[in-house]
């Protein structure tokens, strides 16, 4: 998006850190940053945290279903999502942090449709901001 004066507004991934709630460090590993492409299997609009299940196919053809945790349905709706914002079958690019024990259960940091990688549908700051809340939001 450009202002009248031609400045590009950048979407920043490092949002102002919220008060640490709990959850991120207990389950996820800030060192296990992942960036993957896949196909949405299911969008789960449930509390306490929404999840997007994404099928990722590796070079050998093995499919892993990544279970990516977001914030609460309320919080995601406040980011502008509606029920049709992301649907099964859509191709996506996503970034997140893998689970400490189950790596394919991750904390979602960012997701966009594969044909619009610069227009993220969901953005969550890094581990500091991701600590907003569980089961809170």
């Amino acid at each position: 998006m450009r202002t009248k004066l031609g400045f590009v507004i950048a979407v920043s991934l490092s949002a102002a850190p919220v008060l640490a709630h709990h959850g991120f460090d207990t389950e996820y590993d800030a060192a296990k940053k992942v960036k993957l492409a896949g196909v949405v299997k299911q969008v789960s609009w449930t509390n306490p945290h929404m999840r997007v299940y994404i099928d990722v196919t590796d070079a050998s053809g093995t499919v892993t279903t990544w279970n990516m945790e977001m914030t609460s349905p309320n919080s995601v709706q406040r980011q502008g999502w509606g029920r049709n914002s992301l649907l099964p079958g859509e191709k996506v690019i996503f970034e997140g942090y893998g689970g400490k024990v189950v790596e394919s259960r991750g904390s979602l940091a960012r997701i966009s449709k594969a044909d619009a990688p610069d227009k993220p549908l969901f953005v969550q700051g890094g581990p500091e901001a991701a600590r907003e809340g569980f089961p809170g939001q």
Partner: protein
Amino acid sequence: MRSALVVAVTFVALSLALNAQRERTASIPTGNTPLISEADALRPVPRLPDGRVDLTGPWVGGGSNADIEREGGLKPGELPLLPWARKLLASRLEQDEPYTICLPMSVPRINPFPWKFGMSYTSHGLTHIYVLHELGDSGAHRVVHMDGRKHPPDLLPTWWGHSIGWFEGDTLVIDTVGYNDKFWFDSRGTPHTEQLHTIERWTRLNFGTMINDFTLDDPGAFSRPVQLKFTARHVRPDVDLMEFICNEDNQYGVAGGFTPAQPDR
């Protein structure tokens, strides 16, 4: 002269653009509850039709979250915990907090999601104020009796305790006893006992800001009463409480390979 003018105009333009950029970047939602604008926050305190101050909200903040000592305005170590309580705090793990299995956070814990004072009028006037929190905390709402009653004797301990309230000028005072000892004051695990007695003094400074002057009095876990201070901020006008059913798909622990602790029965 002309070049100086160009420089000045460019400077002003740059400042405006940078401010606009900052505001727009800051307003790109990243999951936090959107807050009221700075300008709207400074509007005067609203009043109810009977002249009483309107404390409704919804609000974000106004209590503890990760660390009651720091968030309440104290320096590290200043919270006067008794030795046994300090030891318990040190031994607690974030993952075992009752809230992770959808049990109530209670007072003064306010996580970053909206809540409101529901000022409830009947034919007898303002008889109750309900504290409604979006997270619901297992379906709970907090009841503040505003009809002048006293605390009953021999209360059975509960998650939210028994609250009575009254106004001192424009400040809402909420006095609560009868808490159980099961909830944590913050995610790091600051403990308390059933002797806990809290006094909240809520004062709305302007449209967007409300202060909670909080007295924590628990001789079972603290060597003296403590004064803390928290600040609540009003949400953006289009934001209101939404549904939250914590238990419907709680997968907490699986990614980290652990089972959250169950509370004592």
